């Protein structure tokens, strides 16, 4: 658990810091002279270096130190920020992520640092002179501690010991201010010291000894042997002054509350980090409460007690609200997902030589955290497709009368229980003729097969389909749109494509708000109750006696002049009770077309919390999970795709027999 493991906590925090650094770098790429962004990057690197070292990530701390040092020169205005430098730091930032996860090859780091040095040299135009202040040959130190120093935990003897560690010391106590014994407060320090320190010691090291008391004490540190030390002191003086001045300037700008960086931190709402397991536990408790409440309302309805009934209704309302609130806790804005693609677009633009404008809309739309995580990979693929295949080169665009810069827009909005996420580009659109040719070449359709436009476009989601004439570096490696489609359907969502040739394409993903809840149709087959996901259900009809009697023969019904195969859940689930006289068919849509599921009874719509099945039931693949019904009993949720796959061989044997 995060709270108990500093390493895990560090990894999470480091990831957030790196996210901020990345955003600042991407912005900096557009506004190279923005001092606030430079400071934001520097602060991020600085924090990462410090906390990395603190939690034992030495490689990270070491690597980040070099980047921080380099960037510090930008911050101090010694080197201007350049696109090249930003780009190197971006890749350095990737390497840092790998170091945080502990799987970064050291050679990568060295290569990046070499590029970093080159970028810095190029930006500065000069090779920086390594200037370090020559140290004095010795120092004359005089100090007197504040009166309350000893009571507050400072032991002067230890300060003297520390000075002795730096070099040979001659210590003389100054007792001139010690009061008469009667007035002496024993916890106060009245003695001063003169120390002659010999050796090649830096002034900073001496000041470090007094660091905790320096502001309140009397302290003078003078170099020894003025004759030789003069030159050294002058050199140190001239070397120090400009550095101090430069350091002061950025601090001042960072402190102005109106800077964009300050505003964005202020915007972030106060939040609490909770391990996902605790949310799940809370969800379980809420689920139990809802069940207990429904038993209570059954009791209340049976009796005549009006007070009990009104209390029961009150609790029913509260339990429902509690469950809704619980759902909201798991929701995160899609903005967190969208912002992760800015970097992708940046890299794609660089690799393809295209200019890409990236816009997002509806970032505040909220989706279940689990859904967000699972959306990332398919969206990466879709965005790559848009940039790589969709958008034309600037030359082609100008030739087509379009602006040179292509546009990719991500948008999200909520529609009922779903979130619609669209990816729109203004590229060349999908070439129907090529899709058709490819589909024919791959044997997906017959040469003379008639397809409407929608069906034709759907071909791009067929397994093994790829419209790119050549496979580029960017997309089309191994995964295709079929994988994207399957992933989205695995989230109980759907994917749709629209495209106008020459004008661009629009991919729309419809995703349920949450995976934790499902809208289902509760049915009964034998004595078992099952939930069919409502998104799959097309309609419910009665199985005619005629069709029902055809036990041996083709299990097909005619639905609006089309033959629809059906499966009897009673048979698949080997039910041993007598069938109800009037069997019902729930028609569900599947990738293979419509299929009827024959059940004994349709109980009704049921919104329900999905619970996972135990590891011991992993082999029972026909079920996507289970849920607890109002009476406390368990109902299994059907996995339609698996169920059809399982029913298929039976159907084929039956057909062969018939």
């Amino acid at each position, binding site marked *: 658990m995060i709270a108990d493991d500093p390493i895990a906590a560090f990894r999470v925090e480091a990831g957030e810091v790196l996210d901020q650094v990345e955003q600042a770098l991407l912005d900096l790429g557009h506004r190279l002279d923005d001092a606030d962004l430079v400071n934001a990057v520097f602060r991020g690197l600085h924090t990462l270096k410090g906390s990395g070292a603190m939690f034992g990530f030495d490689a990270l701390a070491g690597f980040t130190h070099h980047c921080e040092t380099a960037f510090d020169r930008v911050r101090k205005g010694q080197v201007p920020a350049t696109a090249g430098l930003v780009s190197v730091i971006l890749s350095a930032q990737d390497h840092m992520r790998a170091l945080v996860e502990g799987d970064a090859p050291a050679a990568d780091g060295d290569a990046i640092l070499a590029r970093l040095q080159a970028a810095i040299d190029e930006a500065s135009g000069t090779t920086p002179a390594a200037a370090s202040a020559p140290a004095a040959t010795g120092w004359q130190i005089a100090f007197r501690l504040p009166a309350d120093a000893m009571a507050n935990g400072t032991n002067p003897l230890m300060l003297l010991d520390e000075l002795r560690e730096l070099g040979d010391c001659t210590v003389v106590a100054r007792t001139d201010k010690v009061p008469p014994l009667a007035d002496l407060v024993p*916890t106060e320090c009245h003695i001063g010291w003169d120390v002659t320190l010999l050796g090649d010691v830096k002034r900073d090291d001496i000041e470090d000894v007094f660091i905790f008391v320096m502001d309140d004490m009397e302290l003078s540190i003078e170099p020894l042997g003025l004759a030789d030390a003069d030159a050294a002191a002058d050199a140190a003086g001239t070397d120090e002054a400009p550095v101090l001045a430069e350091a002061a300037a950025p601090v001042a700008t960072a402190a102005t509350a109106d800077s964009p960086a300050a505003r964005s931190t202020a915007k972030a709402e106060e939040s609490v980090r909770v391990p996902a397991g605790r949310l799940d536990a809370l969800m379980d408790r809420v689920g139990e409460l809802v069940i207990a409440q429904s038993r209570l309302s059954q009791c209340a309805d049976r009796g005549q007690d009006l007070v009990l009934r009104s209390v029961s209704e009150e609790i029913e309302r509260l339990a429902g609200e509690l469950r809704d609130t619980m759902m909201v806790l798991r929701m995160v804005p899609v903005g967190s997902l969208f912002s992760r693609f800015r970097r992708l677009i940046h890299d794609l633009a660089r690799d393809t030589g295209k200019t890409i404008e990236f816009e997002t809309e509806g970032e505040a739309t909220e989706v279940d955290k689990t859904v967000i995580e699972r959306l990332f990979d398919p969206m990466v693929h879709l965005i790559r497709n848009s940039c790589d295949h969709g958008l034309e080169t600037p030359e082609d665009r100008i030739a087509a009368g379009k602006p040179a810069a292509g546009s990719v827009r991500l948008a999200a909005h909520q529609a009922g229980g779903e979130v619609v996420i669209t990816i729109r580009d203004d590229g060349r659109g999908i070439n129907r003729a090529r899709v058709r040719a490819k589909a024919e070449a791959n044997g997906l359709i017959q040469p003379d097969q008639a397809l409407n436009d929608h069906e034709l476009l759907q071909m791009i989601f067929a397994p093994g389909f790829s419209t790119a004439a050549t496979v580029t570096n960017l997309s089309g490696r191994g995964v295709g749109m079929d994988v994207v489609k399957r992933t989205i359907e695995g989230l109980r969502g759907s994917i749709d494509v629209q495209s106008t040739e020459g004008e661009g394409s629009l991919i729309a993903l419809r995703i349920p708000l949450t995976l934790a809840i499902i809208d289902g149709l509760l049915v009964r087959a034998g004595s078992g109750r099952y939930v069919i996901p409502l998104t799959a259900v097309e309609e419910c009809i009665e199985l005619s006696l005629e069709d029902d009697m055809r036990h041996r023969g083709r299990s097909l019904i005619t639905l609006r002049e089309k033959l629809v195969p059906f499966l009897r859940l009673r048979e698949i689930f080997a039910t041993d009770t007598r069938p109800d006289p009037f069997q019902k068919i729930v028609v569900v849509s599947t990738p293979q077309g419509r299929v009827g599921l024959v059940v004994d009874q349709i109980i009704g719509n049921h919104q329900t919390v999905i619970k996972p099945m135990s590891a011991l039931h992993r082999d029972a693949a026909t079920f996507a999970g289970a849920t607890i019904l109002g009476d406390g009993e368990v109902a299994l949720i059907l996995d339609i795709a698996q169920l059809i796959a399982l029913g298929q061989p039976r159907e084929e044997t039956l057909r062969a027999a018939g």
Partner: protein
Amino acid sequence: MTASILAVDDSASLRMAIRIALTGAGYTVTEAGDGVEGLTKATSTKFDMIVTDLNMPNMDGLSMIRELRKQPAQAGVPIIFLTTESDPEMKNQAKAAGATGWLVKPFVPDQLVKVARKVLGR
């Protein structure tokens, strides 16, 4: 005898980091999760040094330092506070409250050990 140090911080991970750093250097470490707990523990047991965060629930670090310094038994006990930035105003307040020194977060274990050696001399 090893020196005993009280670590007061509301962040469990930071307390753990402090404990790992200091026990690794041969000190014994007692933890407290906020100012009240820190004050209670420091009053019942005498520590050789106290390391405390400033921002904490129940009782913040400044108040705890002030309360501790009111106790004659705590005179001379070094109190090091942890601060996120080298904020001079915060430093002055903590010093005025009776702190001995400070350490800027984030810190590496060596820095904390160095501070402990500095104020304890061992």
